[in-house]
């Protein structure tokens, strides 16, 4: 395991972590406003298939990712309509959305299985070395010799951090998540902010799916998301609802996803099944540790998962 091995590995971990970062940021924004949307996996599937088909139809990388984001928003809006407007149970609705999205992608995607993304999109997202930053030894090779969407995620993390912590809108949204009654009495629209955060979250989850189908694999195949949506849900908890920590977590899990194939080459006396199970095992461990923390220190938005009834005040 020389330095070059680590650079290759960490560079690949950044790529493997990118869909996780996007999905985690999406779920984080959603949860900040008090909606526990467990449909991340479903929204990722919708983004992956719609992004891919839009790419096939238009050949345009821009429209492909707009399509992916819109599909994610559509999924989030279904969730919002059922849980916010109709006030159904969020957990059940989220699980349903996951099943719906998976089936939706399978239904639309069956005729195009194996088809490759248009060459123009693949060419647009080849690895590009950034000037100056890319020349930093080791760090540059790992973080700044990547495709454009990876760079976009760096910007998105900062934007999300700024939005949540520094902007009035983001703080309003956070209040809605912590204490919807107080927010309502301050004249902040609980329903409006919950829809807004759902839409932003849905767009990011859709992008995460699009990243997998258009850049990571670039061809359509069944069962592409493979549980990444669930890892994102766990990562939000792992990150304590902080976008910067979410990035670290996503990198860590991205690395876990691919480390197995690399460790196999060292003839370790460890079953490959165990190496494969690492990301899921870690997800369970994170959730167990989180549930052991006392409620006051868990950092979860206090109003998470509860529909808001103004009439019940």
């Amino acid at each position, binding site marked *: 395991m020389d330095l070059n091995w680590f650079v290759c590995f960490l560079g690949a971990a950044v790529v*493997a972590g990118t869909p996780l970062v996007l999905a985690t940021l999406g779920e984080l924004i959603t949860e900040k406003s008090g909606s526990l949307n467990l449909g991340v996996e479903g929204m990722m599937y919708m983004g992956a298939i719609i992004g891919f088909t839009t790419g096939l139809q238009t050949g345009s990388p821009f429209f492909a990712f707009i399509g992916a984001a819109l599909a994610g928003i559509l999924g989030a809006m279904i969730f919002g309509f059922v849980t916010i407007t109709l006030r159904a149970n969020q957990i059940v609705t989220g699980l349903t959305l996951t099943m719906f999205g998976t089936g939706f992608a399978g239904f639309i995607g069956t005729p195009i299985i194996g088809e490759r993304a248009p060459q123009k999109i693949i060419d647009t997202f080849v690895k590009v070395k950034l000037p100056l930053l890319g020349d930093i030894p080791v760090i540059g090779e790992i973080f700044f010799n990547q495709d454009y969407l990876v760079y976009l995620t760096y910007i998105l993390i900062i934007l999300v951090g700024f939005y949540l912590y520094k902007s009035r809108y983001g703080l309003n949204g956070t209040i809605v998540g912590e204490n919807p009654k107080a927010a309502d009495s301050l004249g902040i629209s609980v329903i409006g902010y919950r829809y807004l955060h759902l839409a932003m979250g849905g767009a990011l989850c859709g992008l995460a799916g699009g990243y997998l189908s258009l850049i990571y*694999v670039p061809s359509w*195949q069944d069962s592409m998301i493979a549980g990444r949506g669930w890892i994102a849900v766990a990562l939000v908890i792992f990150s304590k609802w902080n976008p910067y920590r979410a990035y670290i977590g996503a990198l860590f899990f991205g690395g876990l996803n691919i480390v197995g194939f690399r460790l196999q*080459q060292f003839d370790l006396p460890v079953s490959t099944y165990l190496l494969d199970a690492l990301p899921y095992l870690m997800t369970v461990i994170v959730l167990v540790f989180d549930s052991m923390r006392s409620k006051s220190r868990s950092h979860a938005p206090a109003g998470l998962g509860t529909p808001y009834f103004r009439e019940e005040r």
Partner: protein
Amino acid sequence: MKRSLALVCLLALLVPFALFAGGAQESATEAPVEEPYKVAFVYIGPPGDLGWTYMHDVGKKEMEAALGSAVETTLIESVEEGPDSARIMGQYARNGYDMVFATSFGYMDYALETAMDNPDLLVEHCSGYKTADNMSTYFGRMYQPRYLSGIVAGSMTETNIIGYVAAFPIPEVIRGINAFTLGAQSVNPDVEVKVVWTNTWYDPVKEREAAIALLDSGADLLAQHQDTTEPPKAAKERGALSIGYDADMGQFVGESVLCSPMWNWGPYYTATVKAGMEGTWESHQFWGGLSEDTVKLSAMSALVPADVQAKVTEVQASIVAGDWDVFTGPLYDQSGAMILADGEVMSDGDMLSMGFFVEGVVGTVN
């Protein structure tokens, strides 16, 4: 108000489903003559996977073309290897089907159960080892074309490191890796074959990740025992070469796929269904090789030099003629221990239970 709104939404959602249900089509062909022989195929994946299921579907179509209207077929795709498969096969039996092809290893026990419950149904199970009076197994000696592809790989690698993306550490896959390695060593004794297990037959994302891990460790050529075209695509993006599997993957990826060991089920399906129709079908364990045309090596890419192509043709001819087979001594395992003495030929039984890597393979069988 809320409730009626919800109801309206629910109805709006149901309408398209009702439409689709009405429009659902059976893929069974029309039967102009009386009592056609009815055959069902159970697939593990979609025929559009360009791999394992695709090749079964090609074989099915060849059989249909050969037997014409005397046979009526249907297929069901993406059936999980679980109790559901027994239910599906049982349903075919009740609907008057005469023969069922179960095209994946994991259907074995369910196929046997179906065969026991429906004595009139003939069950053909691919790649398993359990049989009954009305249940047979069929498979191919894929290790033979894999050996040939190894000759191509060994001649073309420059770093002498070949990556092998492999599915599960079971005898079928291990046999393929060993045959491939022996083929590569026959022309290039310095070659190393690095194996990475993905523990999946069909997962584009994992296969790609494994392929990239191998390319990162210095491999300039990838081979695979996987059912998607991701490893050859990943190799192509890095300017590396590859060997396909299942189907002629060069068609889908390009010249960088030097050749593909591939399945050719048409002859077997035609012969078996014909035997069923004529009443000559008997329970059997079919393991067809290059000489039965059950497996073959695809046409080679233009990148393969003529002398390498000639060498492959020569070895292929000697296998077909029965002069020689891949696992002929001297053969040593990874630790250097002798498995076969000079000239000794491995039995089919030993091949079918192979659990060791030959010298030159880097990786572990676990």
